[in-house]
């Protein structure tokens, strides 16, 4: 079969099994758009801003486990995509981003809409390619998908000069079934000796804790993690990125750890004697001050990326490998091991943990006349029976969504953890809804974040992706205000917008349903009404208590055992902000 470059791109994507491509046209990709026009298999989703394309593809990828695919033009199209690429990079999400480039002969001449996309994205991609020969196009696309999805996943950019896609140059086409790259061979099977040592240490622990992260979600190892955790009977804590990989409602789960983690999770980390980190990367939001991190613990670390191991925290037993395989190997050894778990010590440990749990660190004022954001999330959980896909933006609302929506399944919690990208939530929700049209998809956002990609409301209408947007409107960049309150003597420098749009009208202008509530008793019925509107996108503008802060909190420079807890319930209501 002879195809031109543009047709090769489209056909390769189809042969790769790509369902949706999120994009925006422009000069350098016109040949590609012409090829897209002339077929029906590959469905193109026209976003309203290239950042939206990357986040939507990213949301699709996080929810499905399949790579998200993006198409943007050269120059401004490409640079607009960079924030989304970096977002995917920091959370290890597989994306393949195709950017148009000016034609080969004019590269380097400051041609119209020329930017060095390969250079700009180098530090925020797993790998990138500049295609210089049409006969290499199909193979490059295959490589891109292979690199993006294998090992530690991540975004890959393919920069394609316009002349490579020219309609008149046809070459033989066949899509390679497999591809190998001599310089790239991710290790998947763990070292047996190391695993044996780890099992021995684990079984001899007196105050153990399992600390699992996004790697379990990425590695589809939720089932293995559950079996492993139950077999040991040890407490487990998840990172923000690992939520859902172990059921939140399970009694062994002590909740999220880190800056806004639970008191019990952080205390258990601090006091533990053995920690097993599974697909988690000791992020600074998790560890707090490194010198104070887990002073009594020997640490085991399973990660597919050797560079994640001993990057910030030195570990006793590193295991490089795929979490699913390693957990299976470990389970086998645990069953055969002659070492008996010290059940008395473990019971004592659980007793200690239940004392920490009794502090009830996530309790909040339920009698407030104002809408408490935590209550909204609790109600969202109940109305959707814990089965929704929840995307979020970045800020206090993100933390409340993480703390109060009890995710029992992986890939249901879709948020930007590593880069913390405001504007992520709405386009990501569109991507999720395309992947799962029957599922409830909620976007928990804030009045500042939502304005960063608000234009995608129009995309949601065009492609009939009925999502529910819960705008926790506290009239502040709450997260910024909270830091200013704690660390800058309440000097609220520019964390407040004097003008905020009327979101109801805005939603209506985009062709959706808008609702606004400001009383706690309206929350439940409004959510029910909104979710009953199966075929409409509903924007619920929820006026929440603007003084509410996220607790517990580990402040900068503190250790896990030194958390700031909520002020006594009752005193927070009607609090005047300084």
């Amino acid at each position, binding site marked *: 079969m002879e195809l031109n470059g543009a047709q090769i791109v489209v056909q390769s994507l189809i042969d790769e099994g790509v369902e949706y491509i999120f994009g925006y046209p422009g000069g350098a990709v016109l040949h590609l758009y012409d090829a897209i026009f002339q077929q029906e298999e590959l469905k193109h989703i026209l976003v309203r801003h290239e950042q939206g394309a990357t986040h939507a593809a990213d949301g699709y990828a996080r929810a499905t486990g399949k790579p998200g695919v993006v198409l943007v033009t050269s120059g401004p199209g490409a640079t607009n995509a960079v924030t989304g690429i970096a977002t995917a990079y920091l959370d290890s999400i597989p994306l393949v981003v195709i950017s148009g480039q000016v034609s080969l002969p004019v590269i380097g001449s400051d041609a119209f809409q020329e930017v060095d996309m*390969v*250079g700009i994205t180098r530090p925020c991609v797993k790998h990138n390619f*500049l295609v210089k020969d049409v006969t290499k196009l199909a193979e490059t696309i295959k490589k891109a998908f292979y690199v993006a999805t294998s090992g530690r996943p991540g975004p890959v950019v393919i920069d394609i000069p316009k002349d490579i896609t020219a309609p008149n140059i046809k070459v033989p086409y066949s899509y390679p079934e497999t591809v190998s790259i001599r*310089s*790239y061979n991710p290790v998947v099977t763990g070292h047996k000796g190391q695993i044996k040592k780890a099992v021995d240490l684990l079984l001899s622990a007196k105050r153990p804790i399992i600390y699992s992260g996004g790697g379990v979600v990425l590695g589809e190892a939720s089932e293995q993690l559950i079996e492993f955790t139950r077999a040991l009977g040890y407490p487990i804590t998840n990172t923000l990125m690992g939520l859902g990989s172990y059921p939140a409602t399970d009694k062994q789960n002590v909740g999220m750890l880190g800056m806004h983690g639970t008191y019990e999770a952080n205390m258990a980390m601090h006091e533990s004697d053995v920690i097993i980190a599974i697909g988690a990367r000791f992020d600074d939001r998790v560890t707090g001050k490194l010198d104070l991190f887990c002073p009594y613990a020997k640490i085991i670390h399973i990660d597919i990326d*050797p*560079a994640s191991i001993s990057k910030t925290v030195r570990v006793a037993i590193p295991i490089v490998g795929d979490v699913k395989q390693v957990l299976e190997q470990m389970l086998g050894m645990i069953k055969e091991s002659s070492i008996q778990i010290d059940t008395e010590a473990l019971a004592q440990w659980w007793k200690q943990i239940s004392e920490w749990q009794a502090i009830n660190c996530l309790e909040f004022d339920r009698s407030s006349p104002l809408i408490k954001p935590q209550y909204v999330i609790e109600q969202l959980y109940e109305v959707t029976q814990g089965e929704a896909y929840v995307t979020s933006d970045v800020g206090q609302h993100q933390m409340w969504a993480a703390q109060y929506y009890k995710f029992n399944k992986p890939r249901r919690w879709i948020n930007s953890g590593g880069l913390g990208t405001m504007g992520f939530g709405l386009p990501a929700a569109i991507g999720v809804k395309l992947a799962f049209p029957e599922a409830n998809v909620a976007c928990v956002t804030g009045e500042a974040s939502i304005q960063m990609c608000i234009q995608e409301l129009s995309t949601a209408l065009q492609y009939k992706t009925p999502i529910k947007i819960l705008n926790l409107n506290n009239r502040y960049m709450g997260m910024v205000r909270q830091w200013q309150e704690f660390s800058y003597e309440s000097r609220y420098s520019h964390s407040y917008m004097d003008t905020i749009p009327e979101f109801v009208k805005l939603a209506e202008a985009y062709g959706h349903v808008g609702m606004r509530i400001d009383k706690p008793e309206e929350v439940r019925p409004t959510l029910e009404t909104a979710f009953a509107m199966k075929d409409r996108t509903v924007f619920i503008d929820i006026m929440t208590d603007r003084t509410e802060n996220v607790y517990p909190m580990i402040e900068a420079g503190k250790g896990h055992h030194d958390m700031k807890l909520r002020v006594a319930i009752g005193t927070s209501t009607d609090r005047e902000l300084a």
Partner: protein
Amino acid sequence: MRHIISILMENESGALSRVAGLFSARGYNIESLTVAPTEDPSLSRMTLVTRGNDDIIEQITKQLNKLIDVVKLIDLADSFHIERELLMVKVKTSPEMRDEIRSMTDIFRGKIIDVTPTTYIIEMTGPSEKLDAFIAAIDPESIIEAVRSGPTGISRGELGLHL
């Protein structure tokens, strides 16, 4: 500690900037860097001298290995190895100084590879310290310009960096 890392990588445009970019993005220092194609034209070999404690060097080698274009690498400082650097130095020569410079060059086993009525160009290879010593031994006023390649190295014995 000083480490000398030898890298085999795909001989592709952009591979060098991936390595250089990694060092600047992660704040690692590069003391010197040399690169050239190998006998296999699809590969180039880079020698990079850097400094850092063990933790930093471990991260550097892991991060380098993570680059898709990097095929293999070794830290030559881990084993017996030989290092060489090339120096070319152009010196001003007055008639009365010529003999002295010539004999100094001989002592250091260098070669004079270009002569004009008023200048010499001296070529010298050796471990970096030897080149340092030579530079220190000649009159600094006489040096017009000096260029050094940065060290490159190879491990001794049967072990080696190859595919």
